[in-house]
């Protein structure tokens, strides 16, 4: 067999394999920029132009890495390394030419996901006063409130437990970025829009 036909076959196989692998991967569960209207709607409209990435003054957006199938190259947020700051004017939404990001007038319109606290890891539930997530939240006293209560079986000490309001949490992830607990895991995470739509990860 000629080398040229081997290379032609291999090249076609590489692209075909990529296609099959992408098709098998299914829907991504990435944390999307503000204004994404669910993973299905977002992935149908995003052309990966990168303008939202270029509009983010906190450089919180970056293209999804190569293991994300068809979503590779689409904008995402890694809350732990650099969370969305929920800018008041949403330059990323303004920059989007296809309406993959849209319909955001104010912070309360944003539905990136919802913060979920792991009460076994969160030190506030163990009696320490932390409140880092509460104080860093752009929607303080709305998305996160502090539940002051007596510690169970302890007549002297209180628990200052952070409580997420699922209806009001935008999912920006700033609490995840700031959380002081990271061993063995961060005590708070964002359940993304896609995960919630599937009924939890």
């Amino acid at each position, binding site marked *: 067999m000629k080398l040229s036909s081997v290379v032609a076959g291999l090249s076609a196989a590489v*692209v075909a394999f990529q296609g099959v692998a992408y098709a098998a991967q299914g829907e991504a569960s990435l944390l999307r920029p503000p204004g994404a209207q669910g993973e299905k709607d977002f992935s*149908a409209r*995003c*052309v990966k132009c990168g303008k939202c990435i*270029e509009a983010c*003054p906190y450089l919180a957006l*970056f293209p999804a890495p190569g293991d994300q199938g068809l979503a590779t190259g689409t904008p995402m947020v890694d809350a732990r390394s650099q969370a969305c700051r929920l800018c008041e004017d949403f330059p990323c939404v303004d920059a989007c*030419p296809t309406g993959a990001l849209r319909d955001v007038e104010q912070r309360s319109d944003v539905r990136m996901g919802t913060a979920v606290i792991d009460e076994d890891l969160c030190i506030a539930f163990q009696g320490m006063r932390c409140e880092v997530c509460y104080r860093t939240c752009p929607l303080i006293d709305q998305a996160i409130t502090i539940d002051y209560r007596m510690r169970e079986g302890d007549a002297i000490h209180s628990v200052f437990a952070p409580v997420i309001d699922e209806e009001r949490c935008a999912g920006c992830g700033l609490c995840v970025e700031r959380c002081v607990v990271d061993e063995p895991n961060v005590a708070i995470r964002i359940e993304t829009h896609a995960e919630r739509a599937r009924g939890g990860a």
Partner: protein
Amino acid sequence: MKRTPNTSHAFKWSWLRHAVQVAVLLLFAAPLLLAGWGLFGVSVGGDDPVPTPADLPFFGSLSSSSIGGLSLLDPFGVLQVVAASKTFELDWLLFALPIVVFYGLVRARAFCGWVCPTNLLLELVDALRRKLGIKVSEAPVPRHAKLWTALAVLALSAVASVPVFEAFSPIGAVNKGILFGSVAGLWTLGAVVAAELFWGHRVWCRSLCPLGGFYEAIGRAGLVNVKYDRTACIHCDACRKACLADPSILDPVLTERDAVVRAGDCMACGSCVDACPTHALSMGLGKGAKQTEQGPS
């Protein structure tokens, strides 16, 4: 007027074209650099806001850019989004229209010849192949195949509900790889480079690229055409050897059935004009009357 063969041209279209290709690369990189960001997505953010490329009068990529607040959108991207989302927004049409009108008036595949960074890379690959003396077949895939890959992309976009070419595009791999460090389409790019080194001469741009197929479809409308002077031609075939698109698009003029190269495939790259030893070919404006009746090229 008789000209002697092998006169060297004072001006080469290829020089101007390569300058434009490099300028396009710099144009898209400039907003990131001017904003103080790095290329390849290396910059990281902090707690304070920083100036962004989007604050500047121009920013974006080949898929979409903004000039003075006006959005431009890749028309083939729009078709994919329409197919994938099964919706239509007037904005998409308005953003894509300037691109369609510009390339439609000039020459649709001038995008391929003068702007596309993947074509620039593949021209370098082809030069490397010739230097290495690797022989490849000239036209293993018919040039109109790319019309069908373009249609296939739209059909697949509708089925998968995702703009499919944007996930595989080697053009995006070069353009957005440099700008943001995106790796989408990198596998395709590798496959295309291998195929052009060892299998088919410029087979991606000539026959396979869906974006090239889209532009081929609107390509015949262009006003910039290669003109043919039948009295000067010595039928040396230098133009056919130099053609970046499919050499067969020159046949209607070389057989004197037409006065201009009309095929939607023509990239107006000027390679044939540069190669012609007798100045029988030139870049011209306007469609020119057909010399004789002829079928579609």
